[in-house]
């Protein structure tokens, strides 16, 4: 569900949709263990899925990875990893923050 939400959020709001989804997820699942990890994994799955769907449509994602990687002076595969890690960070940290804020309200008298 997190993955689907991240994918939808990205499609609707762009990359900023991911921390939004992560934050909301954290607020909802504020007592859940490893909420940050779950959000991160969800974001990775979402973005990997989006990249995969481009590949499935015939888009040459590998060419982009190689050439943009060359522009940024990193291997193309690393660019893919950086992309997914970026999404994971956005979602995971936002989820933890959301949970923390929700928890703070819950603790308030």
């Amino acid at each position, binding site marked *: 569900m997190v993955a689907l939400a991240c994918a939808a959020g*990205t*499609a609707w709001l*762009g*990359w*900023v949709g991911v*921390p939004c989804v992560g934050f909301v997820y954290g607020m909802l699942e*504020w*007592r*859940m*263990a490893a909420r*940050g990890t779950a959000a991160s994994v969800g974001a990775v799955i979402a*973005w990997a899925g*989006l*990249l995969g769907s*481009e590949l499935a*449509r*015939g*888009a*040459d*994602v590998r*060419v*982009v990875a190689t*050439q*943009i990687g*060359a*522009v*940024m002076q990193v291997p193309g595969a690393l660019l893919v990893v*950086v*992309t997914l890690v*970026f*999404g994971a*960070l*956005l979602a*995971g*940290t*936002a989820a*933890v*923050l959301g*949970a*923390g*804020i*929700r*928890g*703070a309200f*819950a*603790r308030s008298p």
Partner: protein
Amino acid sequence: MPDTGKAFGPGDDRNQEVPAKGGFGGSGPRPNRYLTATSTMPPKPLVTTLAAVALAATLYAGLRPIGPLPPLGGLLDPVNGVWANAGTSVPAASVVTNIPGLEGPVDVRYDARGVPHIFATSEEDVYRALGYVVARDRLFQLEIQTRAATGRLTELVGGQALGADEAPRALGMPRAAEQKFAALNPRGVSRRIMDAYADGINAYIDNLKPKDYPIEYKLLNTRPERWRSINSLHLLNQMGLTLAAGGPDHELLRAAALVGDSAAESVFPVHTPIQEPIQPVPGWTGPHDQFKQIAAPGAPDTAAARVASLFKRFEGDDPGAETHRSYASNNWAVAPARTKNGYALLAGDPHLQLTLPSIWYEVHLVVPGKLDVYGVTIPGSPGVVIGFNRDVSWTFTNTGADVMDFYRETVDDTLNPERYLVDGEWRKIVTRVEQYRDRSGAVIHTDTMRYTHRGPMTHDHGEWVSMRWTVLDPSNEIRAFYDASHARDVNEFETATARSFWAPAQNMLAADRTGSIAIRSTGHFPIRPHGETGQFIFDGSSSANDWTGYWPVDKYPQSVNPAQGFLASANQEPETPESQFGYLGGDADYEVWRALRINQLLRKSTNVTVDSMIRWQTDPSSVRADIFVPYFLSAARNEDSLGRHVADLDSAATLLGQWDRKYTRDNTRAVLFETAMQQLSDFTWDELQRDGKRVATPSTAVLAELMSQPASSWWDDRRTKGVVEGRDDILAKSLVAALHIVQKERGAPDSGGWRWDRVRFANIYHLLQIPAFSELGIPVQGGVGTLAPSSGSGIFGPSWRMVVEMGPEIRAWGTLPGGQSGNPFSPRYADHLRFWESGTLQPLKFPRTAAELPASETSATLELDPRSR
């Protein structure tokens, strides 16, 4: 309480634990839904704070550029970022859309080479569609070239581009474009097609989603700017800057500053010493040497030194090299009597800076009964520049005319002049404030430009100098291209272009289906007062020094159906000195070697075929080598005959003598010759050095002229005290030095390192100089002075090659060093490059109707329908 071993209750934020006994199925109390096996308390404040910091940092990286990197968010977004460009690398096979203002449906068929064939019902619609397809394929190129022409790159990349932005503004280019635009009749042909073209570009931009922005916009973290009709004029001004700026003035002055006027005028003559003019000369069966005695270097001219300093902006990065004559081109046409098929043949290859995407964009425009033209356009300018219609084909080479003059102005205040003196009367200086902005729109620099009636002023070394330049004059090149595309024979073509085309002056060659061939050097050539050459700075305080007009068209260098049955131009002097109406330019802006070679080939060929025309475009032979190699070998023999046996000289001469004088990829001797020629220039022109750097280089034609004067004091290398060298001494010294250099850099002669394909490359850079988007290190056949020239950094070369057969049905062949698409991820980005590299031309489709382009040869379609939304 469940026995968990830990106390808990309200306010206790320690982790809750499951019951120690009984578990969930046991006898303990029913578990709270929040106190499940996986539930925990919310993160501790410290963890939350760390998460907030980490999120803030990630968001910062996502929103703000870090160093050279654009904001990562927009870049890495899998839907809208660079990954989306993978999906747009190949346009959809079939698209239906609309352009506001469209009068009727337009059918665009892309052929197998990615060339759009545009079939419209009105000419304005065809230009609307042209704007649309150019935007679709070359949007970023449109923008960056316009910004370069208007001095607005800082708005894209920041203050680092300030120097580049100041140049066109200091030359008055944006102002001139505004004046030209204002002078156009809003209902005239030029304005209407420029406006229609703009409509097409903006229709594409307006419907573009961020995910579909070209990759360059994402890397630069910006968005496309809407197109203005005037931008087409900015781009044509930029072409003028490329091909018609400078002139021999500054080189002559720099030379005079070092060796005196007489010697400088000898080595920078007005007329080329080896004459092979564009206009055939009755009775001439080959080139003529018009060698004169070259005056010996004399005392420096201090006045010239001061004036030369005013031309600092025209000093190239390497004024000492032969390569600054790189903007060169070839064209030739053969009359039916000399062709195998009995039809006129035309070939053209303009040499410009090689870029990806290419400076040209191929297109075919059809409006039944009105227009049917194929050729290359400049992205941003409506109209085919080089190409053919059903009756006429045409192509250009640069004339190299001197159309820029300078005037030393007398002003009322050296620091902040408001008036300048002409004929004893003060005239008001017009000012214009130029503001340079950064990416945020903030003003980062301001200049006040000043103008006299002649043109923009500059201030150097306490002097105010104004400039008169035909590129800034009101002209209408777009009308010229429009009229040319409607021409029905060579006469109509030449008339149409002469009417409206002012700059940069071009040698316009045409051939038609009746078998006629014609050429005219077309552009506005100024008439200077008192027969002056324009090679020096005029005194601006007298209006008698202003231009008195322009050459009449019938005095332009021109020829129609010459008796010799062919015409050829390759940037040589257009006419013999005796034939010229007035001063046209100087030897420094001409080049003779390619002209010599193509005339050689044409003179001996009476059965010319399309294949030979194509083959000649990459002919590896060199008349320059034919002339200079024997001199080197002779010098080596002379040393031997004088008993001065030098082993290295013998070796070098033996190696050079083995060369067939062809710049083929696998030859292993051209590198020795080229290095020897560089050494020869260095040793010969040592008098033209200042602070260890050569400031002006005479042409190799002048060097050939000097070869006929073995005792000239120019040969003496002043750096060798107590020794006075002659010609053969310098030749021998150059050859030995070359051998040492090449051996040191490349190893033994036959070790492989001397192969030409390891020496000479074409380098085709992306517009932003991004190596990953560039094609670098392409081995080429050709070198300095060959018909497919390549030298220096390899960034100049044939930017388009075309051959046209003017038979009952036009047949044509062409290729670009790149492809139609400006998207680096597109298979059409550089798909034509392999043909260009091999010297092969591809057949060009020229259907009369959309139906004539079968589906099997159509790679995509685009329908522009006024009813579509």
